């Protein structure tokens, strides 16, 4: 890599060298691989069942993905900082019920959504404070809060449930309505997603999340406010879980004490499939969103192809393995190509 003779010309043009383009491509490719798997899957399904991509079909696909996309977006921020939030499922459940109770009492839908988000923020803050101030392993703490929030939820909710009948019609219609085949909920998720991705790329605080996930000790030495950033990531994650809770209510019109149970594994799967690395520092929210889209679509594709539901779980698992394995193999190939190129260069 390092040559002793100065070479100003090549240094100025560095941004345009083959190396950087290749690197760029590698990073784009990680998401591209998932996108291709997704498109192939959709194409195959469409070939097998022409109803699949009808207006209703597209709408269903998008709606199914919406909630997971939101939660996965928040989760990937936390994972990028080398942490994890397992309590998102519990948060989603309790915020959905809170919003439902409020609406049941004749509340305003917009206020209900804000309420859910605020409640999510509160739980996110709790997680963030425990992790960043206590400086304890996130996995344990958020597994703990997963249980705590779920327990509080079950004690509070008991056997009550919110059904569509308890909700204002406008709210339920909002949950299933949309512009042509694009549901309102999906639009919300898209806005959140694009906004988050933009901030991550273009604001210092966003890049600092990557930095502190990449090397926490170095982040401290570089003067990055580590605790503040981790707190912010958890809070954002909680907020999105809350928003997802409200949208869950709108979408399914049905919430009880079991809502969101076991959701953490799905979210973590989506994030991992989307190429966000668990040891922190790399990955993108677009990847996580694609991962979410892929996972939820598998669940629509298999029934649409008439695959017996007995097979669904196994196929789901194997596809997940395939996705991460293919991603890894591509990454390895590219890395070795990069290395050889470097060697020739040196």
């Amino acid at each position, binding site marked *: 890599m390092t040559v002793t003779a100065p070479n100003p010309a090549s240094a100025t043009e560095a941004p345009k060298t083959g190396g950087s383009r290749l690197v760029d491509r590698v990073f784009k490719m990680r998401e591209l691989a998932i996108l291709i798997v997704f498109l192939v899957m959709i194409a195959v399904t469409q070939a097998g069942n022409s109803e699949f991509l009808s207006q209703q079909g597209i709408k269903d696909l998008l709606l199914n993905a919406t909630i997971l996309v939101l939660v996965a977006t928040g989760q990937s921020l936390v994972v990028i900082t080398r942490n994890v939030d397992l309590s998102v499922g519990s948060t989603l459940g309790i915020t959905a019920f809170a919003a439902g109770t409020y609406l049941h009492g004749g509340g305003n839908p917009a206020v209900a959504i804000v309420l859910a988000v605020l409640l999510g923020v509160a739980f996110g803050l709790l997680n963030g404070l425990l992790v960043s101030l206590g400086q304890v392993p996130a*996995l344990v703490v958020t597994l703990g809060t997963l249980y705590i929030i*779920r327990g509080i939820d079950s004690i509070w909710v008991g056997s009550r449930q919110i059904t569509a009948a308890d909700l204002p019609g406008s709210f339920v219609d909002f949950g299933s309505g949309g512009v042509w085949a694009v549901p309102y909920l999906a639009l919300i998720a898209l806005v959140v997603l694009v906004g988050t991705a933009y901030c991550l790329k273009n604001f210092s605080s966003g890049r600092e999340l990557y930095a502190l996930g990449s090397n926490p000790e170095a982040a401290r030495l570089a003067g990055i406010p580590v605790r503040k950033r981790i707190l912010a990531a958890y809070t954002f994650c909680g907020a999105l879980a809350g928003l997802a809770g409200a949208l869950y209510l709108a979408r399914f019109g049905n919430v009880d004490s079991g809502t969101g149970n076991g959701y953490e594994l799905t979210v973590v799967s989506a994030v*991992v499939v989307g190429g966000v690395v668990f040891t922190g520092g790399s990955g993108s929210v677009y990847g996580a969103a694609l991962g979410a889209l892929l996972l939820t679509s598998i669940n629509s594709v298999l029934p649409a192809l008439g695959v017996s539901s007995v097979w669904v779980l*196994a196929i789901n698992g194997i596809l997940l393995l395939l996705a991460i394995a293919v991603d890894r193999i591509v990454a390895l190939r590219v890395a070795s190509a990069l290395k050889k190129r470097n060697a020739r260069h040196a």
Partner: protein
Amino acid sequence: MPESLTRAVRWDTVVGALLIVVLLFSFGFVDGFGNALNLSFLIGNTLPIALIALPMTLLVVSGEIDLSVASTAGLSGAVMGALWNQGMAIETIIPLCLVLGAVCGLVNGLLVTRLGLPSLAVTIGTLAAYRGIAQIVLGSDAVTDFPSQYLDFAAGRVGDSFLPQAFLPFLVLLVLAVVALHATPFGRSLFAIGAGEEAARFAGIRVKRNKLILFTATGFMSALTGVFWALHYASARYDNATGLELSVVASVLLGGIDFDGGKGTLGGAIAGVFLLGTLQNVMSLLNVSAQSQIVVTGVLLVVSVLGPRAARQIAVARAGRRAAAARTPTATP
């Protein structure tokens, strides 16, 4: 953080002490706790978690995790049921199931070591895949008619004592695991791998092979648990032991095993397992609702990580004050 101070407040000993306190309290003040029947139930219901916690502890010490354990247990139970329905002899079926479990573990291990994939991601995948295969194998059947001598062994007690018969084999396995982790070069190398994988490789430790062994052992033990589960509850269904992985992980964490790898003791992990099991039993006897039990579990987990840290900070502060007071020169060997 100096290691000497870290070790001064060892969480695993705290968990052990806590377990003893809870047991003493329960024997003294909780109706129906101390009799042989209840104790045998308590131990019998905790055994599956304890069985899987043994290899899981070793795995976590080496810096990996296996979330597919419950699915492997479910799969081995399902296969056991399906083969039994085919009319195969149980003496053949059980070894087959154990081998199958080992193969499941091996698959996890190969994906992790050969492709270098994160074990969390791999085993979330096989968590779904193995459970799915179990569903394909056994479908909606529930097989219950296993031979009674096997069922009796899995559910029975040693004479009239509180010890389930299955506890004795577990003790043997426990001793094996403790020796393997804490007294053999293999165990020592696991700690090294967990704390610094690259350095371990440079020290000539066969990192991949060791991890492969661990994953395979975990699969084997999960299958053993699956067989035990099906016999203990006299029911082989594809969804046996669903969600057991979280209980195992929670117990092991409670026992002070660090998920970053390289730290922890088996004693702590097993104390964690039985502490959670005992608490649940006691809370049920005291009519604490299932919901409140969940909250207690969660609070325990949070305390289990915050507690040692707070204690350590206090210890450090105290040591600092002592050092400031007594200005002795640095010790050298």
